[in-house]
């Protein structure tokens, strides 16, 4: 209850959540609103926005409906954002937890491994991975997951490391609880809050990453995506600015909403830190 109250008091977080919900609703009901494929050429090319009721946001150079593209793109962006974040969490959380709890040699090896992945320029790695594996939903998710897990591993390791030396964890050892039980009942529940916060921020950066890949032509060729739309319109910027403009706004709003929500969650879940920020 307290958590909700603190979250609602944060104006930015509420705005973020509202935008996010709107995007999610569009993504869910999109196919009912625009049952036709967004790839179909339905009107005259280069119809300017706000001039025809049928195409409120205009059409692109092939006469495809931009509004339809945006709504279908919302699905793709959210889907890839969430799934690749889950992939990154599935790699990062166990790795960080093991490194932090086991310590010593394991910790050293795992952290060197993590550092290696952090040193590699992540976007370049993502490009190479998608290019080599051929662009598809799966390869994009894998690429984003592979380049996004290191911060998760470091966060979880840090938390576990500090929790492990906490006196109540030592007390759990002395009363004879088994190691897995200690990890699951004493350590991990206390790391969930920061992981949730980080997860919501990671979805945002995954969406940005996906749109950048699509912009370069590395999107799944069967899925309409915001980044692809921006990229497709860029050769006709001067005479048809709207083709690139609207999808960019869509990415911006979604990413902003996720960041605001994530920060709101952070403040609500860590009231002590939030108060110090004043």
């Amino acid at each position: 209850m307290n958590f909700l109250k603190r979250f609602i008091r944060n104006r930015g977080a509420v705005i973020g959540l509202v935008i996010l919900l709107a995007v999610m609703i569009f993504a869910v009901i999109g196919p009912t609103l625009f049952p036709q494929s967004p790839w179909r050429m339905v009107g005259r090319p280069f119809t300017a926005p706000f001039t025809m009721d049928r195409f409120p946001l205009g059409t692109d150079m092939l006469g495809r409906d931009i509004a339809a593209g945006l709504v279908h793109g919302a699905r793709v962006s959210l889907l890839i954002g969430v799934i690749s974040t889950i992939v990154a969490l599935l790699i990062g959380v166990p790795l960080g937890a093991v490194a932090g709890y086991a310590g010593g040699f394991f910790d050293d090896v795992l952290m060197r491994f993590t550092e290696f992945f952090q040193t590699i320029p992540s976007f370049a790695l993502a490009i190479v991975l998608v290019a080599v594996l051929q662009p598809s939903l799966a390869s994009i998710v894998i690429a984003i997951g592979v380049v996004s897990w290191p911060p998760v591993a470091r966060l979880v390791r840090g938390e576990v490391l500090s929790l492990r030396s906490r006196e109540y964890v030592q007390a759990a050892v002395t009363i004879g609880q088994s190691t897995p039980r200690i990890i699951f009942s004493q350590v991990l529940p206390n790391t969930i809050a920061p992981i949730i916060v980080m997860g919501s921020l990671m979805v945002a950066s995954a969406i940005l990453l996906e749109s950048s890949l699509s912009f370069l032509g590395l999107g799944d060729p069967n899925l309409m995506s915001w980044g692809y739309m921006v990229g497709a319109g860029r050769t006709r910027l001067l005479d048809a600015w709207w083709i690139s403009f609207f999808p960019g706004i869509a990415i911006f709003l979604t990413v902003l909403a996720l960041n605001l929500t994530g920060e709101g969650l952070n403040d609500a879940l860590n009231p002590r830190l939030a108060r110090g920020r004043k």
Partner: protein
Amino acid sequence: MHFVRFAGSRLVKGVIVLFAIAVLNFFLIRAAPGDPAMVLAGQAGEADAVLLAQLRERFGLDQPLLYQLWIYLKGYATLDLGFSYRQEQPVLTLILDRLPATLILTGAAFIISLVLGVLLGALAARRAGRWSDSLITTIALIFYATPLFWVALMSQIVFALKLGWLPNVGYETIGAGYTGLSRVGDVAQHLALPAITLGLFFTALYARMMRASMLEVAGADFVKTARAKGLPPSIITRRHIARNAILPVVTLAGLQAGQLVGGAVLTETVFAWPGIGRLMFDALIQRDYSVLLGVFFVSSAMVVAFNLITDIVYRVADPRIEVAA
């Protein structure tokens, strides 16, 4: 003596990272669909049979995998990053041709964003809670959430195409034949838009980080000591808070160097900036894997070098590191 050992250990670490990336590259070629020889030739479909046979011979593609790896790594060790059969030039030559442009772009973007980010973040923290703080925080939040390539495109429309203030694309005015200072000025004009758009995201990032770091340090005990001395607030902020708050920002900036190179791919693509990012994009379109992986390797090497430099700078800036190392 300590310092030499420290620098040496970091150098060894960097070499290990580069070695690992070379190994990764080797396996990526094998992961690509189709015949590795075809992949190395950078061609799909009808390929020259003679060339393919040559490639098989040269990279020992009929030999066991470990032997192939050995050949491949030997090539990397002697700076032979392969040959682009599309552009009929060694990959290294292609990259070295383009590297200066990327170094100028990323260097300028890095300096702009670090200086601006730190200043804005510090200003916001000093005015925490007031309107100037809200303004800076909001702008930072906006640029933090805007896709880089889109900002690049939009600024291209507005400042180059509509307003005509700055050149649209390229590195310099072709055929103008500028020399000396006027050439520098010309390049600088071309550089302005790409560097600023690339730097915006990082400016936002560093500003947010610096603000948070300043506010955290402001609560430290030694700041209370400084206040108890009767120091004026401006000196406390500058000498005691900012000097300590900037350290984690520098660390982050060092870690973010890789992202800067990634961002360069996008900006160079939009502004037709003749750097390795643009080279990577062209290689991507042409499925020229040798070049693609070569750029990946070189950009990693750039990051490693950059991390090395920030590590050393950090060590100079923070006396405590000496104990920890």
